[in-house]
């Protein structure tokens, strides 16, 4: 047993000695590095090292949690936490944490992501690729982000394990004019698959096409969604599939298990697979993560659970436990059998939306929402991009949108950026019909 795992176990034992019913401790040694750039130059490089143990403890169904930093003041902290549990209030819906010894997959982290020798070279590769597409005058900005974490988990209920998680992400936004831009991302769990030029090329291609945008017109459109845009929507639906969201009505999926919630071609799964920037082998209860199909051919099959919410819904945990509530890890949408170009050819008159931000709901239960496309917005005429547009807003309903999807591409991209496409996803190009667009008046 490693020293970190032994110390993590000591925290759990301390909690048990005090009389806790269940204790779980997860130690993370995190090394994150980020280089931010704008106007084609590096603005700052940021490095965070973090040594922290998250501890959750239950006593007589009273659930309390804390953090211990760098294994300091363990006894004092756990004693304080236990005292807090004693004066806390019973949570009758608490159903315990995962029990048993589990076998986990072997972590496949990339150790080179602990510290890149020269992060700027990846940035300049992407900027150059954008320039090649859209011209030397391109103004690009973005972020290169690397993460590496060793995670040690010990539970009083049996689970014990070590995970090593790594990720590298590049987000680049290129401007060919002040109101003409394109955004590309490159997200991987290891450096060997990481090609910054792909993100730069895409940002540059869209920025070039986006030149001289005209005011868009309000109305209903058939829309091709780029994977980057649709990643935001997949994140929204994935979060709404969490049993926690359902219980507090922050979801369009309340009381819809077994019902048709999307068109037949929609299958969505949560899967923190090896390729994902949110890869992991166990959840925060130490339960092995798994692939969960939550919408199968348009039918809502399950919510995403931890042990407690699973008991409430009379089912089994899906391996989505966060420290307090279940959460999605990585949403995948099943691909179709057509190419991106074949998808475009199905659109007589519609829009191609490349990215979005600021998705907000009037009502999470009904799904009424709007989101603002950013970067390239294009008018499609008989399958061809005809004109760059601006100042449009998608103002529709999240449930209707799921039902109006008519086709998806076989190409898919792993996307994640900022808080807009979080959690990450694996998204195809998507065609949806009759979607309402509005504009300012």
């Amino acid at each position, binding site marked *: 047993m490693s020293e970190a795992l032994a110390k993590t176990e000591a925290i759990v034992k301390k909690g048990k000695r005090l009389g806790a019913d269940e204790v779980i401790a997860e130690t993370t040694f995190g090394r994150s590095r980020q280089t931010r750039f704008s*106007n084609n130059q590096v603005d700052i*490089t940021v490095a965070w090292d973090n040594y922290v143990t998250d501890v959750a403890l239950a006593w007589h169904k009273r659930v309390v949690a804390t953090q211990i930093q*760098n294994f300091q003041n363990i006894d004092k902290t756990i004693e304080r936490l236990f005292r807090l549990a004693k004066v806390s209030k019973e949570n009758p819906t608490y159903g315990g944490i995962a029990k048993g010894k589990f076998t986990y997959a072997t972590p496949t982290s990339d150790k080179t992501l602990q510290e890149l020798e020269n992060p700027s070279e990846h940035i300049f590769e992407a900027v150059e690729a954008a320039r090649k597409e859209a011209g030397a005058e391109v103004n690009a*900005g973005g972020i290169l982000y690397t993460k590496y974490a060793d995670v040690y988990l010990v539970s009083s209920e049996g689970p014990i394990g070590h995970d090593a998680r790594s990720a590298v992400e590049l987000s680049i936004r290129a401007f060919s004019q002040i109101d003409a831009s394109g955004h590309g991302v490159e997200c991987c769990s290891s450096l060997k698959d990481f090609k910054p030029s792909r993100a730069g090329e895409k940002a540059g291609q869209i920025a070039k096409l986006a030149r001289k945008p005209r005011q868009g017109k309000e109305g209903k459109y058939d829309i091709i969604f780029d994977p980057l845009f649709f990643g935001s929507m997949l994140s929204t639906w994935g979060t709404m599939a969490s049993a926690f969201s359902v219980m507090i*009505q922050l979801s369009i999926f309340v009381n819809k298990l077994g019902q048709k919630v999307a068109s037949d071609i929609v299958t969505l799964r949560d899967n923190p697979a090896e390729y994902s920037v949110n890869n992991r082998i166990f959840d925060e209860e130490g339960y092995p993560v798994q692939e969960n199909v939550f919408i199968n051919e348009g039918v809502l099959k399950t919510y995403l659970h931890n042990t407690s919410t699973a008991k409430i819904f009379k089912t089994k945990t899906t391996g989505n436990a966060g420290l307090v509530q279940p959460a999605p890890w990585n949403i995948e949408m099943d691909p179709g059998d057509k190419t991106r170009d074949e998808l475009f050819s199905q659109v007589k008159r519609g829009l191609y939306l490349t990215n979005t931000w600021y998705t907000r709901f009037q009502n999470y239960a009904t799904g009424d929402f709007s989101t*603002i496309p950013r970067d390239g917005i294009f008018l499609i005429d008989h399958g061809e991009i005809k004109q760059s547009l601006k100042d449009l807003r998608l103002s529709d309903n999240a449930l209707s949108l799921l039902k109006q999807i008519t086709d998806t591409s076989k190409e898919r991209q792993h996307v994640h950026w*900022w808080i807009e496409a979080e959690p990450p996803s694996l998204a195809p190009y998507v065609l949806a019909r009759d979607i309402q667009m509005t504009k300012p008046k």
Partner: protein
Amino acid sequence: MGTVDKDLVDYALNYARSKKIEYAETRAHSTEFEQLVIKNGTLDAFISTVDKGFCVRILADGGLGFASSNKWTKDEARILVDRAYRSARLAKREDKISFADEKGVDTKWRVTQKKKIEDIPAEQKIAELMEIDKALSSQEIKIPGRIISCPIRLTEKYFTNSEGSAISSFVPKIAAFAFITVVENGKPEQAYKQFGRSAGWEAFDEWNMTETLLHEARILQRIIREGKAVQPGKTDLVCGTEVTGIASHESCGHPIEADRILGREMSQAGRSFIYPGGPYWMGTRIGNDIVTIVDDPTVKNSYGYYEYDDEGIKARRRYLYKDGIIDEFLHNRETAAKLGTRSNGSSRATNYDREAIVRMANTFLLPGDWTDKEIIEDVKHGIFMKSFTEWNIDDRRFNQRYVGREAFLIENGELKHPVARPIIETTTKTWWSSVDAISQKVEFDAATCGKGDPMQGAPVYTGGPVIRLKEVYVR
């Protein structure tokens, strides 16, 4: 107080000074954090942590480097300095970063609590929050979704820099969030409220959350029962203080951030309709001449309160739009140097492991000379949008939309039936140019402003008086 190891922070700064630097700063935070989450009547979890760490930021060879850790050792301090220094030098910028001139400041400041949060037992905090939920669930109104959380942060900070600054501070931030879903005849309507102060437990007493949330529940029920759709078209729109506040924040505060104006946020939070060489700049008209919007960190006990920013600059009121004209940008020392001015103390970081960036504090429209009643009485036909639900704005901060939560029809100067989710979708220029009446009373709402990657949710107030927008399109 006294939990930050100042000697170690000073040691890190002195070590940084031994390098070939243009500037160095160290900043330590120690935050005692507590959060209670009440979900549908049960205490889901009680979280209690102490997060303590420090960072080093170095300007060397015109580049910036930053490193942070929560390991409090001299070895770690040297590692951070070496790392930040190396990163700064690796930047190899063509146009070198510099900071606007400032003199070092040696001071201490703190926000005092009338009722010290540390003295309030956990049982009392739980009981008071549970009482709110009990009041909500015991009504005849069906509220199947209720979540109330109360995060509290007691933060001690110590800031030092190579120009001689040494600033210690202590700020207690108390907040509460509530999200409720009312269902009537199978139809759901939802409301979200946020509360926040830089103060002690007395803030919790002053909020009167129970009455506020009961009011929201009753209004949602009334909207389901009586709410009618708006006849789309041009009309007078009277905005409550909550709507004035969000518009001030989104379409004045954000576009006036100088880092955004200069493109430093271009890939994430976006740019601004104000940019060098563009149609809008300082001195350009953006609204009616009765419109003056300020950002003011010095509003006592406000959620966005501070006396010195995270670059050690004294806080002061900033006039963003003055008499309808773009007047002053929000600056840190880097943006101020680029635009040939001085920092106005707008640089903030939410924790030791975050770079300080340009942020709003408390952004609000200054009062006019109408009463709320006079504004309503002066409307022949219009809508009163008291509060909002969905809202968003484009990444240039020009094309925005607000959807009403509590809203009523106005006819011949009187409030009539509720209106279901009226929508205004317009531009920044149209919004502020349409304001023709402003009431005398400013009210504030607590909010969490999002910016930065990783996200730094900064505590702010949004606010203003009741305003009237003349003849705007509402649907």
